[in-house]
């Protein structure tokens, strides 16, 4: 098997995640889809790391995880406070910016 297949898998997962972000209204699910995209990227990094024979790709994936963790913490806090004020977790309800 060609290890490039890992990249194809990463691309596929990333696309699925992106599409999910676009079509789901529940903010939590949208967030999960974002996580899915991040994980797809991490897979690609790890695969690259293996191809190039050095650990830099893994380091980047590691940092991605850290940043993702921070992002999840803040993002979920936002969702909670949003739900608290609007009694809804739908991203479409937060549409006051339109004209």
């Amino acid at each position, binding site marked *: *098997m*060609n*290890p*490039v*297949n*890992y*990249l*194809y*898998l990463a*691309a*596929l*997962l990333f*696309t*699925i*995640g*992106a*599409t*999910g972000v*676009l*079509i*789901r*209204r*529940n903010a*939590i*699910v949208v967030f*999960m*889809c974002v*996580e*899915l995209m991040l*994980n797809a990227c*991490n*897979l690609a990094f*790890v695969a690259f*790391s*293996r*191809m*190039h*024979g050095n*650990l*830099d790709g*893994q*380091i980047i994936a*590691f*940092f991605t*995880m850290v*940043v*993702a*963790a*921070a*992002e*999840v*913490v*803040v993002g*979920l*806090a936002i969702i*909670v*406070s949003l*739900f608290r004020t609007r*009694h809804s977790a739908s991203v*479409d309800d937060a549409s006051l910016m339109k004209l």
Partner: protein
Amino acid sequence: MTQQLELAAYSTSTGEAFQFWVLGTVAVIGALCTVFMKKAVHSALCLAGTMIVLAVFYLTNGAYFLGIVQIVVYTGAIMMLFLFVVMLVGVTAADSLKETIKGQRWLALLCGLGFGILLVGGIGNASLKEFNGLGQANANGNVEGLAALIFTKYVYAFELTGALLITAAVGAMVLTHKERTERARTQRELAEQRVREGKQVPPLPAPGVYARHNAVDIAGLLPDGTPSDLTVSKTLRERGQIRDVSAEAINDLKALEQRSAERLERTPIEPANLKRAEEASK
């Protein structure tokens, strides 16, 4: 000849190929379920499955440390955080997958499709000729290798991510923290207020006692047979998660009467009585 050599260099063991195809399929299915499951809880579980598969892939690719971190931190911590929030927002609330923004779904699918094709095309056309493997890099152990990099080359980035995490933690606290603007009233004060208003002086009634469900979400019945919302907690009331089982007993009774009537060949009871019972159940 060279072709064969290249192929040899590119290919991996059959076991890994088998693992890739099986687990890859699982991962894609998990991802799709994440997107298309109606309930957020199911989505979260599917995502956790996908992440575990990815952790296995990390391990396969020589990223032992990341594989473990993926399971412990991502699947273990982050996904649990998700689940907590899902609980907070409402486990059973199912989203409607019906699109409300005109054209959004088609545009999203179009973009996704185009994006995927472009990515796949880009990877297919990339000149990924070298395939070195991590044997040399992991010679002293994967964790030691990563540590050597993190604490030398990437030390500034590492420190910065530490600052980022602290900031995120403080940010989350600030966002979710609700400052009290007035002193919380004591139980005595609350009791006095209830007496003064003369409204619901005794404790609130208990919820339904049919031991057939998670009884907290079932309203208790008043003496005339109607359910009372007061018996269910305010959170469930606001979420609209009160289950009404008042008709079930009557329906069960009716079915029992029906069966005994068939057995004993009696005439059915008066329709008027039945109607009254139905109205009461509403």
